[in-house]
């Protein structure tokens, strides 16, 4: 199994990670090597085996519908890169773009 250049570019975009031209081939090589490791999975017979997404076989607990949090905006925004009037600022979001 190996990645095509196009696939690598697409997953990099999905993950919002830039890969610069210079490191592209070496990164692709490393990823291919890791994907090579996955080949072993094909050898396992998993017919009828239930997927295991979690080590605990328990039911999700719940909490009561109560407001327990108070406003801590100032504290929560202490490490914020850019804030104005209590809002986090980002470069303009264009409506309809995603």
């Amino acid at each position: 199994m190996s990645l095509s250049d196009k696939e690598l570019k697409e997953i990099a975009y999905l993950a919002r990670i830039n890969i610069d031209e210079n490191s592209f081939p070496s990164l692709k090589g490393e990823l291919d090597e890791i994907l090579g490791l996955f080949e072993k999975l094909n050898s396992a017979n998993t017919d009828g085996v239930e997927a295991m997404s979690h080590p605990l076989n328990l039911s999700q607990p719940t909490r009561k519908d109560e407001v327990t949090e108070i406003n801590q905006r100032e504290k929560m925004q202490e490490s914020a890169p850019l804030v104005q009037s209590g809002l986090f600022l980002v470069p303009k979001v264009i409506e309809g773009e995603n």
Partner: protein
Amino acid sequence: MINKNQWEAVIGLEIHVQLSTNSKLFSGASTNFGASPNTQACNIDLAMPGVLPVLNEEVLRMAIKLGIALNAEINSPTSFARKNYFYPDSPKGYQISQMDKPIVENGHLDIELEDGSTKRIGVTRAHLEEDAGKSLHEDFEGQSGIDLNRAGTPLIEIVSEPEISSPEEAVSYLKSIHSIIRYLNISDGNMAEGSMRCDANVSVRKVGETELGTRTETKNVNSFRFVEKAIHYEINRQINEIESGNTIAQETRLYDSQKNTTRPMRSKEFANDYRYFPEPDLLPVILDEEFINSVKETMPELPNEKKIRLMEVYKLSEYDSSLLAADKDLANFFEEVTKESNSPKLSANWIMGEFLAELNKENLSIVESKVSAKQLGVLIRRIEDSTISGKIAKEVFEKMWASSKDTDDIISEQGLQQVTDLSEIEKMVEEVINKNPDQLEKYLSGKDRLFGFFVGQVMKASQGKANPKQVNDILKSKLEK
């Protein structure tokens, strides 16, 4: 020339309903609307490093109620999944939603069509998910401000089968869902504030074809009227495209309510790979029978049940019952009114007539009404016991609306009681006859039409307060002498 009759539309709706909990789906922050930016966004809502979600039990109850109302199956276990995408109003970079095992599945809803018949629309699923925050675009040069107060508010997304055939049916379906969520008290359903939002999947095909056409998803059509208009527009656009030899692109479109058009949203072709996978911070939720039964016990009467009861108990017509039952508050108001009044029919007429007209004029909801159900009930009783005439009642109603005073106080303060004292009416009748010798002569010589003139004059003299039936009777006997 396009022959629209050759085409049929296939429509499915995805309705997002904000559940009216006190706290968020996975955090203890408040869900109140309209707070100062980011004051209701706790560390969990802000996706601080290390935080974990904890599920709000009330949300499960609300979803189960909806499932029961939609005649659907409740899945147990039901599980959560992560839907991955980057957007500044989605602080984790993923939304906790449901994929494989939504809490509600395989339901249906019977909607009423314009001709009075009903149609069954399948509900594919309803799943729980988190709402996003808001991006504010004004006031910041080249920047947007992110407010995460809404982030994490519980939503239930109700997905219909593509079994809706017209914009009118779509509105009827949407109104039925709206009515149900209000009856269940799981959401205020306020479309203007965004507590109910609708996306429409629309495709068209030639009548008789079985294959579905390519569909588009029109997002954020946020009023009943816009749903109708947007779907209308989209159907016509698709027919026109195909008729002119073009193909329909499978895409997401935005409705522009000012121009009444839809336009495609910009996106990279592969950008919508959401990479759903089971949320490892939450375990599958087991909804045991005991829990589901405890929810069943809290089920209120539903719109259709209410309608049937209104017909049976109050002997109202199906039309009246259906109108009243469509809105829980309206139906409740009606039942409150009838506790004071005796005639359900007269009460229904008053509520759907003067009462709603006045509310609409001032753009108020039923709970904001300036006249209480009790006040209106007493007013109707005063018509029934002939204290006032229907005409005077309208006057009283207007005064009541303006002053919030009670019916009887207004009637007595303003001396609006109907005159039912026979001698007083007789006196007025005699005066009118004496004042109009010419008309009397003409009447007596055979001009029967003038009878109405005399009635009018007597009513005028009584300032509308004389009982019309008594006036008639007395006039008749006097004139025939």
